């Protein structure tokens, strides 16, 4: 890794603690050679209202998605984006964002699809940085264009498609949406046609673990022991399970993917980014309603 890791005690407990940095660490390391800070938010204007000095903006909607197909950039597109942001293959990229790092985790996950080696998340995200009264600026950085190799996207290891999920029915899955979305009540409420799914409910067999259970009030991650209690003791998952996580479009489940993979050390976790906006609209896929996970093929 090109920039030293954060040795904060809390992080040492996690399976891969070097994936996290604290606000203290980031404040100390801002401006270091080989470090690029990336803000990725749900709100497309938040970066413009003020951001961590030197941070680059990456927008999931306009920059990480392909403009035509519902998919991510290809290798050439990603290389061009990285070059423009001043990121080389050796750069340490620290992500942060709003909503307890939903979108920051999502961007980090997309970077991992392209195998970017050194990616890390700011524990607590934008809200903690702000709550601590740390500096924000409206000044946009002018990065020096970097050379980034064309790395093909690997969709096998950490990404699941609808057919993968169909083949996975009966194996461990977590639905990280709110409970009302899980039970299927929410799309039945007359004021919510905007959710963009024709059917409500969840994928049969998926257990409900709303993403927010992994976060503290201040947006930081819960301790390893607390996380193990939720995912391993309560839900009965084990680190060698093959797990698929999903939500509505794959952003909240990136957060849970990060927790399972790097904080708890699960070997094989895939994020189903098609998520409910695909499953809830697909013809003849099985759906379970209510609080019970249900079983496939029943």
């Amino acid at each position, binding site marked *: 890794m090109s920039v030293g890791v954060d040795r904060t005690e809390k992080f040492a407990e996690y399976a891969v603690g070097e994936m996290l940095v604290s606000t203290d660490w980031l404040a100390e390391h801002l401006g270091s050679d080989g470090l690029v800070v990336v803000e990725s938010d749900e*709100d497309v204007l938040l970066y413009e*209202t003020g951001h961590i000095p030197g941070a680059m903006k990456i927008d999931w909607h306009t920059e990480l998605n392909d403009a035509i197909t519902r998919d991510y950039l290809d290798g050439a597109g990603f290389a061009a984006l990285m070059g423009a942001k001043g990121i080389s293959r050796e750069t340490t990229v620290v992500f942060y964002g709003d909503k307890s790092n939903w979108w920051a985790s999502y961007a980090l996950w997309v970077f991992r699809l392209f195998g970017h080696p050194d990616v890390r998340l700011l524990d607590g995200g934008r809200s903690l940085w702000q709550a601590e009264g740390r500096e924000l600026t409206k000044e946009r950085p002018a990065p020096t264009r970097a050379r980034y190799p064309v790395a093909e996207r690997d969709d096998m290891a950490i990404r699941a498609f609808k057919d993968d999920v169909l083949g996975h029915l009966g194996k461990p899955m977590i639905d990280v949406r709110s409970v009302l979305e899980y039970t299927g009540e929410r799309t039945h409420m007359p*004021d919510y046609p*905007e959710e963009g799914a024709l059917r409500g409910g969840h994928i049969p067999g998926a257990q409900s673990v709303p993403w927010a259970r992994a976060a503290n009030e201040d947006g930081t991650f819960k301790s390893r022991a607390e996380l193990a209690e939720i995912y391993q003791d309560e839900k009965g998952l084990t680190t060698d399970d093959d797990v698929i996580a999903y939500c509505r479009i794959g952003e909240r489940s990136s957060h849970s993917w990060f927790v399972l993979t790097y904080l708890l050390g699960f070997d094989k976790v895939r994020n189903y980014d098609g998520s409910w906006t695909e499953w809830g609209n697909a013809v003849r896929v099985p759906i379970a309603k209510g609080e019970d996970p249900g079983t496939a093929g029943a």
Partner: protein
Amino acid sequence: MSELPSALQGIVDDFAEMPSDQRLMLLLEFSDGLPDLPATYADHPELLEAVPECQSPIFLAVELADSGIDPPVRLYFSAPAEAPTTRGFAGILYEGLNGLRVSEVLAIPDDLPNCLSLTDQVSPLRLRGLAGMLGRIKGQTRRLAGTNT
């Protein structure tokens, strides 16, 4: 599309004429320009209607200026600074609709969000939040004016 009221048409034109990479900065200006709630609402948030179509907590209220025929409509919004996109939409509705008459508010086309030249920059779910705000403004206006149209 039918004629828009002039203030709103001006906003639509401003967005359309702006180079696409600067449209977000214009939206930020609307976010910054949204007036604070008057004390009557700031002290009584229960008088405001929530807009659950938006992913951010936003609340609004509609008043009629007088009891005459087709009176002017007054709008009030509450949206957090951490949600500048949603605030920007509220700012557009405030600038474009506040002070219009009931009949004019009710005639605003429901596809207004698609007319703002923002569909490339702002995700569809966000734009539906704007449609939700507009729908609720029209709903309250209809109830207050006692029209069933």
